[in-house]
């Protein structure tokens, strides 16, 4: 049996893999995106804080800040054509102690070094004027007007759909178990399925990045998944803050953020907990209670608000702070490893950077003359939503105001939901305050014929 041959095989359909699939497909190459799970965005990319970062606090001169700045610029350039939201809230780094206050000038300097020139320090009074809900003991802040909220799931979905619409190939439920490089081409062996041949392999395997890297070489980096737990508050909490409230960062993490979401909720998190487990991210009651308490200390009115849910994400941290992106010309291999929490912002920039590596080592790219730009459904109040349209279908999910037609569309092509989680991420059904109390039956009726194993009649 002859395996189909591609110019490029991308391993891992997280946000970076989806952006790479889009970039190389639009650059005129035949690309296959290979994902071990039943749907895209099923690993590190499914749980993050959903912020489009300016890169103001990244390490100056790092590859990370370069990719973030480029990704930030590219998202702003293309989001409208793909139907993706952008909510310009800005962010406030809030200092809560004299020590933190002392660090603020350094944060401003670093931001300016990173090219984010509109970042300014603010007095406690200025912080309170912008954010009257913050606790009285806020000592000062740094205002970053360019930080914004985006939809963390629709963005990679849009990149993937554009790749698919322009001729890309997707292989789901396809776990790469080994590979061989002979005669200038790779053969990737897939568990319980036909192998895939490609001239060049791109490793975007997220929390499995070092294991996939071992197919090409002894991995120079080791992934230690870093778990981040979040608490989600119901929509009435959304108006307690105007912008994204960031802590003064430490060497290890950006710290606990209080942010609105593009869907009109409020989010408190993440934690930063190293763990060996690569696939499962569990929540822990004690940690979530601590997050809630921390949120209430900074934003006292939060204590009267209803918690909607909690979740945990895993970011692929390595022993290095910076992204691990490089081309191996002798192995026809490109690595994008260690893309930590900034991957949502950096993805388009990382894809652009990898395109540069490709041109440097593997050949020229000939962009498609007139690519298609399919739009993804909008899930945010920033743009019109179906529930507010004349002739709408029945509202199935009352908390998130999701209509029957939206759910049906997400279950049909292109790139239909491959899991109930994928359906939730595509439509927001069952994501609201009742978590399916009111809508499980009707969602299940629609989803069960498309997603195996949800119910037996």
């Amino acid at each position, binding site marked *: 049996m002859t395996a189909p041959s591609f110019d490029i095989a991308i391993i891992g359909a997280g946000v970076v893999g989806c952006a790479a699939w889009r970039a190389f497909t639009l650059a005129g190459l035949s690309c296959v995106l290979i994902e071990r799970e039943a749907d895209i965005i099923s690993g590190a990319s499914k749980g993050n804080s959903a912020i489009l970062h300016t890169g103001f606090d990244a390490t100056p001169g790092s590859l990370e800040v370069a990719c973030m700045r480029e990704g930030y610029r590219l998202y702003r350039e293309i989001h409208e054509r793909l139907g993706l939201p952008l909510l310009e809230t800005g962010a406030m780094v809030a200092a809560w102690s004299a020590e933190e206050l002392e660090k603020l000038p350094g944060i401003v300097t670093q931001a300016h070094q990173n090219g984010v020139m509109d970042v300014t320090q603010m007095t406690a009074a200025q912080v309170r004027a912008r954010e009257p809900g913050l606790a009285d003991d806020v000592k000062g802040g740094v205002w970053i007007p360019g930080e914004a909220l985006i939809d963390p799931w629709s963005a990679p979905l849009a990149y993937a759909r554009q790749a698919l619409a322009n001729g890309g190939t997707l292989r789901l439920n396809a776990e790469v178990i080994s590979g061989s490089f002979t005669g200038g081409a790779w053969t990737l062996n897939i568990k319980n399925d036909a192998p895939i041949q490609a001239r060049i392999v791109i490793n975007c395997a997220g929390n499995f990045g070092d294991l996939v890297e071992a197919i090409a070489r002894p991995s120079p980096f080791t992934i230690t998944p870093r778990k981040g737990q979040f*608490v*989600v508050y*119901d*929509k*009435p909490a959304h108006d307690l803050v105007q912008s994204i409230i960031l802590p003064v960062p430490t060497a290890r993490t950006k710290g606990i953020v209080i942010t609105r979401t593009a869907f009109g909720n409020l989010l408190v998190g993440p934690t930063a907990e190293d763990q060996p487990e690569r*696939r*499962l*991210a*569990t*929540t*822990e*009651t004690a940690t*979530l*209670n601590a997050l*809630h308490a921390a949120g209430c200390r900074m934003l006292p009115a939060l204590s*009267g608000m*209803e*918690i*909607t*849910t*909690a*979740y945990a994400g895993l970011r692929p941290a390595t022993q290095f702070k910076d992204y691990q992106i490089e081309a191996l010309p002798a192995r026809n291999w490109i690595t994008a490893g260690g893309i930590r929490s900034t991957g949502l912002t950096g993805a388009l920039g990382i894809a652009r950077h990898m395109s540069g590596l490709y041109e440097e080592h593997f050949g020229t790219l000939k962009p498609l003359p007139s690519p298609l730009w399919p739009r993804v459904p909008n899930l945010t109040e920033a743009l019109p939503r179906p*529930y*507010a*349209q*004349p*002739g*709408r*279908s*029945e*509202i199935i999910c*009352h*908390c998130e*105001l999701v209509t029957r037609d939206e759910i049906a569309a997400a279950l049909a092509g292109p790139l239909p939901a491959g*899991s*109930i989680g994928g359906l939730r991420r595509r439509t927001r059904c069952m994501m609201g*305050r*009742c*978590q*399916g*109390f*009111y*809508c*499980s*039956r009707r969602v*299940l*009726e629609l989803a*069960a014929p498309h997603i195996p*194993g*949800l*119910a*037996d*009649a």
Partner: protein
Amino acid sequence: MHNVTIIGAGPAGLTAARVLAQAGIRDVQVLERNPHPGGLPRFCDHPGWGVWDMHRLYNGPRYAAELIRRAAGADILINTTVTAMEPNGHLHISTPGGPEYLQSRIVLLATGIREKPRGARLVSGTRPWGVTTTGAFQEMAQAGQIPFRRPVIIGSELVAFSALLTARHAGIKPVAMLEPGPRILARRPGGFFARAIFGVPVRTNTQLLEIRGIDRVESVLLERNGQREELACDGVIFTGQFTPEAWLPRSAGLQIDPATNGPAIDNFFRCSDPAYFATGNLLRPVEHSGFAALEGARAAAQILRALRGELPPPDAAIPVTPGGALRYIYPQRIIPGGAQIQLYGRASHAHKGRLRAMADDRLVFERLISILPERRISLTLPSSALAGRKSLAVILD
């Protein structure tokens, strides 16, 4: 400008609609976001409904049908969702025909209640398929869609036994019922029923520590008296811990009582914006549907008075606060004058002691009680006791 708009066509809303329509009020409309009115009883396909308010025993769906039949004088608008509330009874609604802006003299909030889902309980573990609430489980079971065969049931309020009944009807056998407290919360021989009739072991003093499983629930981790145990199962049904469905009044900035999580009302069922009234299970964690229905009728009686201009201005109210072992008390504001004043509350834990009401520093009510937290506390005060007073504290000590 409409006369009265009721949000929610469950027992409280439909009963209020019946009272208003029968009193000859024209233009009473009930907004229902679902394709069918009737509320949660529609999915409880076992007896236990109607005794209080209709003096007959129905099963859930029959009771819902009866509520609808009796409210025939009102217009029930299905598939109609309120998306935002503005001051003075102005509503933004989503209808199949498009968005609308609805103005009414009076809006009655009767949006009811839901169980606290896993997410809001901050339970440890993974997030596999097969974790649900009684309400969702009963709706799925009625549609013949069963997401599990051997679930554990978390909690032992009355609704947990409703989940057991549904499970038996659907031919599935829960592996256990878990109650973190020392005793079954449902009244009378619930534990006996669970064991003897359903063959489901009831474990008290048992905490759910963690949910395990990748795609589906595979087990739960339990703790009892410091001993941990992994119990294999394929689903988790979280029962009870009811929460008023109060996001609309909360978003609109109406006063919310943090103790009930529902809108704070005065003794005429008025919210902090007097164009809005509230009734039924929206007011506090949970009462049975018959009580909620009767509350709907009582609220409707006050709305009739409001339409005739007979209610006193709302700003004369004095605050009512709970104290001691009293978890909540409502109405949260009282305007003295007129008839007797009826208050309801709940204890925060099983308690034997003295229930007293202090109008400012004067004792106006006293009773020795022995009370469980799942039992309603009711007290009636003569209105004259509050004349000229600035506050009322109801204290359980």
